[in-house]
């Protein structure tokens, strides 16, 4: 009988927790991943995707632990490779709905190659990338989204590199759906994730989030509340952003749906390939039979 006896979970979220899992989770107090996890569960509940149709797939990192807590089939895989496993699952059984939980390091560094190709193929899956600008699980090293000059366990003199814009990358690779939310605006995140889940094709949601334990501590924002406020103060909705000058948009990032288009989805196109192959095979065999082979 454990640490948690009160009702810390939203009733909907509670229903989606894996019942034989012992809590608490691995996440730090105040971590944004819990907020994002709850938003995902609420979105799934609202759309009513059957639990048995979902496979949550992840790689390695803090956010990649999420599938262990959810009451779905789960694949906790190797670092950066979640999208490859999800591709196999989706293509093998197209009625399944892979949901990939990943982080900035997992998705964009070690998994960068898989990310661009999964987006390019437009294979139907939902990818939620928790962007906390750091490698949390290994102790706070700089990642492909750590801003220039920021501090981390491996950039003690300030980060030399420049960060990716993950949404621009996903758009450039041809993803069907690209959106950005924050862990601060949790209810808006529900809606963005909901739209991503309903999209047929590669749907990518970047969630700007916080790791106060490491990124915050290295960069003079050691509390979760401070970092949530930073998210609030630096995000601008896509509709509003178009009306602001570049000067006003300096130090800001855009949230909302950034790309939404209907393009052919991989597994659906492959079904047509199967039809064509079967037809040609039947014709060839009919001809062979005519010749008495």
């Amino acid at each position, binding site marked *: 009988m454990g640490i948690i006896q009160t009702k810390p979970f939203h009733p909907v979220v509670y229903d989606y927790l894996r019942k034989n899992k012992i809590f608490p989770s691995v996440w730090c107090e105040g971590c944004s991943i819990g907020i994002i996890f709850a938003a995902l569960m609420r979105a799934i509940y609202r759309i009513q995707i059957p639990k048995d149709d979902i496979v949550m797939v992840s790689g390695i990192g803090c956010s990649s632990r999420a599938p262990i807590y959810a009451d779905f089939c789960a694949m906790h895989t190797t670092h950066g490779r979640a999208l490859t496993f999800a591709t196999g699952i989706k293509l*093998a059984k197209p009625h399944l709905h892979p949901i990939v939980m990943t982080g900035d390091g997992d998705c964009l560094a070690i998994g960068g190659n898989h990310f661009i190709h999964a987006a390019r193929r437009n294979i139907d899956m939902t990818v939620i990338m928790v962007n906390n600008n750091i490698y949390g699980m290994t102790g706070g090293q700089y990642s492909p989204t750590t801003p220039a000059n920021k501090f981390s366990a491996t950039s003690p003199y300030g980060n030399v590199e420049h960060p990716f814009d993950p949404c621009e990358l996903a758009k450039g690779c041809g993803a069907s759906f690209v959106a950005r939310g924050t862990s601060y605006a949790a209810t808006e995140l529900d809606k963005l994730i909901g739209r991503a889940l309903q999209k047929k094709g590669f749907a990518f949601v970047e969630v700007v989030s916080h790791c106060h334990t490491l990124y915050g501590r290295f960069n003079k924002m050691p509390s979760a509340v401070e970092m949530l406020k930073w998210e609030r103060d630096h995000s601008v909705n896509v509709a509003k952003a178009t009306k602001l000058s570049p000067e006003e948009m300096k130090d800001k990032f855009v949230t909302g749906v950034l790309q939404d288009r209907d393009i052919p989805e991989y597994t659906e196109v492959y079904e047509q390939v199967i039809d064509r192959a079967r037809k040609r095979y039947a014709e060839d065999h009919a001809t062979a039979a005519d010749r008495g082979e």
Partner: protein
Amino acid sequence: MTQKRKNRLLQGNEASAEGALAAGCRFFAGYPITPSTEIAEILSERLPQLGGKFIQMEDEIASIGAVIGASAAGIKAMTATSGPGFSLMQENIGYASMGEVPCVIVNVQRGGPSTGLPTKAHQGDMMQARWGTHGDHSVIALCPSSVRECYELTVEAFNLSEQYRLPVIVLLDEIVGHMREKVEIPDFSEIVLYQRRKPNCPPAEYKHYGPGTSFLAPLASFGEGYRFIVESLTHDENGFATNRPDEIAAKMQRLKDKIELNREKLIKVHEEECAGAGIVVFAYGSTARSALQAVRDARREGIRVGFFRPMIIWPFPEEPMKKAMHDAQVVIVPELNQGQMRREVERLNPGRVKVTGVEQVDGEMMVPQRILDEIRGANRTLFKG
């Protein structure tokens, strides 16, 4: 209308692809690499004809990832590659081992290390097949010598993989992969297949990694109502990551016992006249063809020489090989590497046997004459001594 057995002129790679289809493989993910590419090309055409799926991934890491994902979703799946690609796959082969996901990897060996010799033969990945991924783990590897065996052993690879819930590696070499021979192809209906056993317990009682060492337990697939975890971290029976020493030890024992407790079932050897022979030749893959020729020529000269060829090379057939070398004073191990399997034979040496290697790493096949010369030389020493 039942199909009759068909005689076909096939290449080793082609036979391996056809064997996979016969075994029920309906998913292939791969990346182009010489000398294995024919397998991908054939399956890209054949799989959709049977309702199966083919995908060309961005690299070999992704290929094996997709294969493991498809298998966990309940479809028999395979990939094919060669040395450099096999190296890239190693981490996820370890994942299949830890997660206990059946899958088949065909490795058509070429010259190495690094990019090496893309179009030339080598048997340099024998140890990588056994120990390529990090950590202790269990693996099964098969080694065909003929086109017919490429077909049969690929079927066998799927059966063993499903049964033992682990990755199974089929080690062709460039010569076997590209060689053409007449093969009698049986009808699909004649092939004995091991079908994955499905659980029938209520979902709440299902343990994906349990119970105990009964690793031949039923295996659920995604989307069937059993909400299990395939876990890469060391885990308990439910698939939950663990740091408890007793649970860690149990998992590691389970991975080991899969093979250790079933060694006698995992023996598949071709042996000729080893009893009473003072000389035994141990060979595998393409080299075994030259070796068998040399052994038969030597016997015609009156030399008592035995022949031993493992078709399942991992787990190493320790007991049968010990028996085969019981009367021998010399064991000759010809191979297209610098002595990888020779050391495995040496480990079984009771002390009185001289184990000699015949190494060749120049990219060419080993001709029977080289092995015959070695047998004659050994025979002369025996009679002098």
